């Protein structure tokens, strides 16, 4: 079974600085997707960034980028120029790429605080 581990329950960063959130996962599959979701107090899970395992290039979305290390099964999220609106719970998630196996497996989350 796949597992996702986020070892940082809480992180804080000064506004405008850069912060990196860690995630490791365990799988025996070679084809899969990895995600970072943001959950503000509204409870809605919002997709931040997605990485396909077969792509060597790290995904980037504006101020958000990942460091995907497939052999190490590591998938960290870097937030540059942190803004107050980035404060939220961040969840790393795994999804097998095979059609029909639709389950997202989440980590336990990292609470990110932005210090003004």
């Amino acid at each position, binding site marked *: 079974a796949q597992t*996702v581990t986020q070892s940082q329950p809480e992180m804080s960063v000064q506004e405008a600085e850069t912060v990196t959130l860690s995630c490791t996962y365990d799988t025996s599959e070679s084809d*899969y*997707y990895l995600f970072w*979701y943001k959950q503000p107090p*509204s*409870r*809605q*899970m*919002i*997709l931040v960034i*997605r990485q*396909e395992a077969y792509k060597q290039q790290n995904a980037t979305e504006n101020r958000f980028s990942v460091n995907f290390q497939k052999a190490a099964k590591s998938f960290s999220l870097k937030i540059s120029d942190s803004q107050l609106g980035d404060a939220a719970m961040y*969840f790393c*998630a795994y*999804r*097998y*790429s*095979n*059609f*029909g*196996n*639709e*389950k*997202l*497996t*989440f*980590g*336990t*989350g990292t609470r990110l605080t932005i210090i003004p």
Partner: protein
Amino acid sequence: GAGVSQTPSNKVTEKGKYVELRCDPISGHTALYWYRQSLGQGPEFLIYFQGTGAADDSGLPNDRFFAVRPEGSVSTLKIQRTERGDSAVYLCASSLTAGGGNTIYFGEGSWLTVV
């Protein structure tokens, strides 16, 4: 609708009662998912629908939990004989179709408290 809509937003019920939670997915989305998020945890998969049929219900914890999607749009999660351990946020999500490359959009959840 513009996003995934869930009702009620909050529900307090007594132990042993029956509860229904409703999910209205994004229009045109054929895949629908239910997750449960306990306090301090990440969401856990419950069930997935492709169209009207439950394609994977392996995450339902026991036979007190049941979900339907009779017309391939709105879905209802039904919990019988509620227990205090059922207290959690129940998240619904939808995607255009199944497949790992499709973006899954979540609603704001229904916060269930069993007293």
